[in-house]
């Protein structure tokens, strides 16, 4: 079985035509995981036994000719900040090292109902704060294209698990680029849907007004399928949208993009951009033009201020969301304490990593009386401006294109001593979250050093369909071979 080239469609066909059983399929996937994950380290928790049990049930269903679910028998990985009933959910934090949720996130519930097999929980930056997965309290995840480099973050485990062929479909979360940037670094496709399209119930909150769960996959079609499986309104999430916005993307994905208008924001292709990235993205834009879209460069001056606004808003919300980890009810608790004040002080000092503490401090500061107006309020006003600028742009363009990351996957440890430098890696992705619009990253080529380069497509709220159609059309044109040749020493 050629697992790294398996798509959801080929799995479904293989199962239906009895080419292989789901137990055989999962056994093969776990063989691969057990062989390679000691090097890549995508997973915090693996659920081999439960997966094989579930696969057996799928096989029985197929044998009995029962109606199959949307993702019946398809292995998926889940980022470790999405709650899974009875399966440890850590947020890659010492704070939640032993936390076993008593409930499923709505997304997980949907996936289970659609027949997906959850193979494990993937590594991430602690509480999804970071762009390299180096902030995990447990271990660093490697980029399958070069194990000396980071897979991006915070959904680094999700992206690497897809790139390494451990699963055909992964679920991550994106607060400021946490799906798209690792997708770009690992050469896979990942989408951050419109805010509200996918329920956040059970997603451990980082920046509540920015967080969205989304799929990562090897191909655009699988990414679209992955989104269809989990989108939809949820009575448990008051910010989730009405059902009428949920569209079937596969119906139109092959319809082509003739006549679409695409905008190129010149600020997103500035001087600071890596030259190789600039040239690959420019090539893709040319290819799109050949495919019949109208290209126009325009000004969208939001990158720099947007980044500041993003870090203020997300940190403010994080400082509040992370308050509950006090050692009282669940999670890590310090050994010795005299009173509540000491319990909470020591628990939080010992339980949180540096980046989480940094964001809590920034967030607490910007919400403090006397500073609120100068920071948080200003950031919220700027956020409205970002929304408006995007709205204006989408009155002219169907899709906006930019690189996903201004830099190539960097070496492990290269940026850990300079948080600000790390924050700059998010320049091209965060504005999308401030505006709540959907954006996808897909591979569009490689650097000379054979590192993946990602291109980002953005569209107006609930216009995922246009994004998928554009991405699919480009994917067919570019035919980027995004399966890494993992030259790993197998011990």
């Amino acid at each position, binding site marked *: 079985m050629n697992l790294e080239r398996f798509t959801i469609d080929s799995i479904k066909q293989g199962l239906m035509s009895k080419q292989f059983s789901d137990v055989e399929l999962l056994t093969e996937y776990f063989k691969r995981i057990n062989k390679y994950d000691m090097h890549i380290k995508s997973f915090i928790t693996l659920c081999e036994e439960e997966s094989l049990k579930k696969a057996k049930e799928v096989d029985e269903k197929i044998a009995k000719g029962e109606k199959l679910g949307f993702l019946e028998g398809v292995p998926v990985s889940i980022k470790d*900040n*999405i*709650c899974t009933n009875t399966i440890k*959910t850590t*947020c890659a934090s010492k704070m*939640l090292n032993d*936390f076993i*949720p*008593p*409930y499923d*996130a709505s997304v997980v519930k949907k996936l289970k109902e659609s027949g997906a097999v959850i193979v494990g929980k993937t590594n991430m930056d602690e509480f999804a704060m970071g762009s390299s997965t180096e902030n995990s309290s447990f271990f660093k995840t490697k980029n399958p294209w070069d194990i000396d480099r980071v897979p991006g973050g915070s959904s680094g485990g999700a992206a690497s698990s897809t790139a390494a062929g451990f699963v055909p479909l992964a679920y991550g979360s994106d607060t400021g680029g946490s799906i798209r940037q690792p997708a770009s670094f690992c050469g896979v496709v990942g989408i951050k849907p419109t805010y509200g399209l996918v329920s*956040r*119930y*059970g*997603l*451990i*909150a980082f*920046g*509540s*007004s920015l967080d969205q769960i989304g799929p990562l996959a090897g191909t655009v079609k699988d990414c679209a399928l992955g989104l269809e499986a989990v989108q939809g309104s949820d*009575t*448990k*999430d*008051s*910010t989730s949208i009405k059902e009428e916005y949920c569209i079937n993307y596969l119906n139109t994905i092959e319809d082509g993009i003739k006549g679409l208008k695409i905008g190129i924001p010149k600020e997103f292709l500035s001087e600071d951009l890596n030259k190789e990235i600039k040239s690959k993205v420019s090539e893709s834009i040319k290819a799109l033009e050949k495919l019949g879209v109208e290209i126009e460069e325009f000004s969208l001056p939001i990158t720099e201020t947007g980044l500041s606004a993003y870090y203020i808003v997300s940190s*403010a*919300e994080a*400082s*509040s969301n992370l*308050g*509950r980890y*006090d050692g*009282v*009810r*669940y999670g890590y608790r310090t050994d010795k304490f005299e009173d*509540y004040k000491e319990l*909470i002080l020591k628990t939080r000092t010992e339980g949180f990593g540096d980046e989480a503490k940094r964001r809590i401090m920034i967030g*607490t500061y910007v*919400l*403090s*009386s006397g500073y*609120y107006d100068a920071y*948080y309020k200003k950031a919220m006003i700027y956020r409205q401006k970002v929304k408006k600028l995007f709205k204006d742009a989408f009155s002219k363009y169907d899709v906006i294109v930019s690189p996903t990351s201004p830099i190539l996957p960097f070496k492990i440890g290269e940026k850990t001593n300079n948080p600000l430098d790390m924050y700059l890696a998010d320049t091209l992705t965060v504005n999308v979250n401030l505006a709540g619009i959907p954006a996808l990253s897909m591979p569009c080529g490689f650097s000379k050093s054979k590192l993946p380069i990602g291109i980002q497509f953005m569209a107006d709220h609930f216009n995922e369909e246009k994004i998928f159609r554009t991405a699919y059309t480009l994917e067919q044109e570019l035919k980027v071979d995004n399966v890494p040749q993992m030259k790993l020493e197998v011990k």
Partner: protein
Amino acid sequence: MNYETIIGLEIHVELNTKSKIFCSCSTGFGAQPNKNTCPVCTGLPGALPVLNKEVVNLAVRAGTALNCDINLINKTDRKNYFYPDLPKAYQISQFDIPICSNGHIDIEVEKEKKRVNLTRIHIEEDAGKLVHLEDEEVTLIDYNRAGVPLVEIVSEPDIRSAEEAVSFLKTLRSILVYSQISDCRMDQGSMRCDANISVRELGNKKLNTKVEIKNMNSFKEVYKALKKEEKRQIELYSYGEGYKVVQETRRWDSSKGRTITMRTKEDAHDYRYFPEPDLPPVIIQESVVKNIKSSLPELPKEKKERMIKEYNLTEKEVNIIIEEKEIADYYEEVVKKCGEPKEAANWIITEILRLLKISDKITVKASYLSDLIKEVKKGTISNTAAKSVLEELAVSDKTVQQIIEEKGLRQISNANELEDVVEKILFDNKQAVEDYKTGKKRSFGFLMGQIMKETKGKANPVVVKELLTNKL
């Protein structure tokens, strides 16, 4: 020096909803600890709030009953602070835009009518409860109350005495209970009151430093605590330079009968309010406000005016009857059945309220009390006998008729029958008869008493009185 006291109150009231404000857990009081909890109200990672619409409706109802402006576009905010009873480390509340504002309540203290203005009413969630075990090094937490819906009602500093404060609270409570917004049980914590109090020299316009008083669990304690704090502050000012009231929060210790410093201004929380991102704005339709307004029952003030007119009762009587809606409803039911408003008021004010001190609900059916009143009116039984019937009615299921028969309480009104008794008593008490005749009118009462005793209280006093007067 004469001082003036300035008081503003903050009242938390638990709303009468079946389920909590952000989840479907029950709000029932007295359940086994942590029974009424779920991932949402215990703040488990990943859980999200969904606003219970009934909470908004009840808050609008409260605002309407308390003469407020209703805000149609609302938002919620997070109030951040750490405390073990607060599972999310933030309380979902409302900060700059409350659901209701600019209301008022009219109160009365010693016949003086007064209007106390309300600044605002906002919705929020309650926290859990800490249980400190005696002689144990542990504190237990019960989250059953976490997420129970509250409204916080804030008054303007219009109150000038502890008496006014209590009158305000009583009036507020009766309006909220009448409108079925809350049961307002201070003993169960469904109504809680904090007070801001300062004093200033009479005639002075400037407000002095205020002190916040917490932990007053009954109207009586509110009264005592405010009196005590008023005295403390006046004393501090009276000492002159060097003694100052400091801005602080003080806790009322009812067992010691004094307030104790809880935290000073320096320790005050910075709550870092910001808009709650998990909840969209709450839009209230104008039609909803209209419907709520028209569905409000008769409120105490209107009821009082009507009752005075309709039943010809005194203001004092009505005040007692309408203090509890349950009593007022009971009264009107009795009146409807027996057609004796004055008698019904007397019975309820003296007897039913006395019985209520023993058992916490009315155990005499309205129809039975009205039967009883009718029997007294007809002269079937005496007032005294009726009281003993009532005692029995309160503890049994028997009817008035049954009790009268069983106890043999039927009154003797037949003059022939009574004449013999009167004759006998006059014969037996010659001295008293003499006394009466020589002008000692008190003897009449003595003779009446002897006759009643002889007949075991069954003699109709009106008839006896007439007979006795004639004979003497």
